[in-house]
């Protein structure tokens, strides 16, 4: 261990050999607490008086909540039997789910044909899962989605290959939620790009129209947009032409989502340095070529995380179609609880539906954060 005298300027200072070799010094170790867990607890939970009070409060809260919750939800829960049994004995009535899960998941779709929406749901989930991997981000993926949509449409409607025709009024539950969310985002995406480009345009009329649309729609609640779609679309069409209820809701969701997506796309466009557009202009590319080949591919890469976030919002928002009379997952759950026998167990019913929404949204948001990190590292300059 070497010290030095700050005032000693003599050239014969300290021998270099003593300086760096650790042979003389004992390889020191960080001071370890007697028990690793105890040390951690001491620092993170009981570090100071206010901290200790908070920890004790939190522990008390958990003590009051968790054991009764576990007792009700797990240890005394029922999974089979009749509603009467649940009522008499207390405890969570998961029997509601085991008995009526078909109604909750598929709505009023014909009971014996439930394999069709089930298969359709699997196709959507498989396509979504594949789309999350960057490895598959190729034009072929779009073809896969197209084929998937055709298959799903065929499965749900039926009318060929021995599958009886099922009208859209009978569609419901999880497949409907997925369809509305996926189609809502997919169909609104092209429109949102046009809106975003319009908002950045130099042409005042086009910019005014884009801004007007975006700000108008973003100022409204989705409920009123759905009401408008549901009530006014039939009025918009020439006499005698009817429009399917599902289609009305879908168009409403699409118009609504497009405004929010447009803002996300605009954010991506703004992040592209002006130099890119200028270089493209200098090369003589027309506006549309420039957008298609240079600007949009770069912008969309930045825009994918916000799009995923919008998809999560859209997925949650599909629950609002209950209000305009469509039978999505939430409405189907509510219908399953309409039976007076099962009505007291609304907590179990809604918790089950909530679990479906939660797992989807939570994992999508984790994915979005992971994706953002991945894409950011790819941008290293």
């Amino acid at each position, binding site marked *: 261990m070497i010290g030095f005298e700050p005032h000693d300027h003599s050239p014969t200072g300290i021998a270099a050999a003593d300086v760096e070799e650790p042979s003389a010094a004992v390889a020191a170790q960080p001071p370890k607490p007697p028990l690793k867990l105890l040390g951690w607890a001491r620092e993170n939970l009981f570090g100071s008086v206010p901290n200790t009070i908070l*920890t004790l409060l939190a522990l008390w809260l958990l003590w009051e909540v968790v054991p009764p919750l576990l007792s009700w939800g797990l240890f005394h829960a029922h999974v089979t039997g009749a509603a009467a049994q649940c009522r008499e004995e207390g405890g969570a009535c998961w029997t509601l789910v085991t008995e009526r899960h078909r109604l909750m998941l598929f709505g009023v779709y014909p009971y014996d044909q439930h394999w069709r929406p089930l298969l359709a749901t699997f196709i959507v989930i498989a396509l979504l899962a594949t789309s999350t991997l960057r490895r598959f981000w190729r034009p072929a993926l779009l073809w896969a989605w197209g084929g998937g949509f055709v298959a799903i449409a065929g499965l749900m409607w039926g009318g060929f290959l021995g599958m009886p025709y099922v009208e859209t009024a009978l569609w419901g539950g999880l497949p409907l939620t997925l369809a509305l969310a996926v189609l809502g985002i997919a169909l609104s995406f092209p429109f949102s790009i046009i809106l975003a480009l319009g908002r950045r345009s*130099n042409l005042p009329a086009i910019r005014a129209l884009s801004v007007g649309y975006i700000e108008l729609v973003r*100022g*409204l609640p989705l409920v*009123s947009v759905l009401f408008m779609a549901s009530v006014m679309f039939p*009025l918009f069409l020439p006499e005698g032409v009817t429009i399917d209820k599902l289609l009305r809701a879908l168009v409403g969701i699409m118009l609504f989502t497009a405004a929010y997506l447009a803002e996300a796309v605009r954010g991506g466009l703004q992040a592209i340095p002006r130099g890119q557009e200028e270089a493209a202009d200098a090369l003589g590319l027309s506006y549309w070529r420039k957008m298609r080949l240079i600007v949009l591919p770069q912008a969309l890469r930045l825009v994918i995380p916000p799009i995923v976030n919008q998809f999560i919002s859209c997925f949650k928002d599909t629950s*609002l179609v*209950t209000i305009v009379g469509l039978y999505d997952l939430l409405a189907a759950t509510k219908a399953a609880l309409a039976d007076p026998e099962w009505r007291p167990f609304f907590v179990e019913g*809604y918790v089950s539906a909530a679990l479906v929404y939660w797992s989807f949204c939570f994992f999508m948001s984790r994915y979005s954060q992971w994706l953002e990190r991945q894409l950011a590292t790819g941008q290293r300059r």
Partner: protein
Amino acid sequence: MAIGHPGNAKRSLFYSARFRGILYQVVVVALVVALGWYLVHNTLTNLAARGIATGFDFLGREAGFDIGESPIAYTPADSYAHALVVGLLNTLVVAALGIALATLIGVVVGIARLSGNWLVARLATLYVEGVRNVPLLLQLFVWYGIVTSLPGPRQALNPLPGIFLSNRGLKVPLPEAHPIHPWLLLALLGGFGLAWGVRRWAIARHDRTGRPFPWMLTGLGLTLGLPLVLFLAVGAPLAMDVPTLRGFNFAGGGTLSPEFAALLAGLSVYTAAFIAEIVRSGILAVPAGQTEAALSLGLSRAKTLRLVIMPQALRVIIPPLTSQYLNLTKNSSLAVAIGYPDLVSVANTTINQTGHAVEGIGVVMAVFLVISLALSLLMNWYNAKVALVTR
């Protein structure tokens, strides 16, 4: 703009950027106008076919339906316009209270997530992640279910003396009218005015001599203490209008309807989760170097937070926060699903009864647009005012 030879005049006009720009705009506007005209024409035809007139004079007609709760007097004999105003007031009341409650909860949870206490931080995270990923409507249904599955008034829960929780709502005792009340209000305002004066004096003195003065605590004491002193001086009149069970329901006291309670609880808890995230990212957005510089100058942690961190964090927090406030106001429209008579719900009933769908929806849209525009302008003004000055 291309200056071509006379022979090429026609060609260069077509390729001129300005000309094309104008052409595009004319085409697009024409298309939009044509589409609009087509839709309007169809609508008018369809409405005529159903025998529904257009126009806003239906607003003067008698409403004929009852509204569950209202901050102002309303009877079914009032006009539709009056009913819509009641709906609007209901929306504003639940939105205002929801914003206040959500902000309170959200700030606490947001700071808790940043806490050094592992348990508290994890619990806060559990709350945020649990609530954010479940649709609001589902949460509202659960709250409404809880509120309506409470026992009837005869078996109402009595957590505190005078407070009753039943499936007919929350009943709280209200103080009975007493002549001292206006004076108490005056005392409160007077105390606040005094507190403000103390603050100005304290700041001026700090500037002049450097001596600090705890004006915040003093101010609080003055604002609350003056009314309290007055209250005690007149003998502490505490006569309360306590809800008492009469027959099948309670009489007296103040009421919070189950629908209102469920909507308020659902909106606040849901929006608070988003506000917590905004507060957390706002505080994290302030670079660590700022804290280090302030600490190395000798500022205490509390002073660093107040003078250096919070001003910078608030700049990042306020824009998305106002956006959440707007979301909460828009989400109050879900009231229609649980029977709280907000604007959308009342408008819905009006449309069903009169058939004037277009006008009804138009009114709702106009109101929400005014609200969101006002908030937008406020936010733009705030942003411009506090923008960090750079070159």
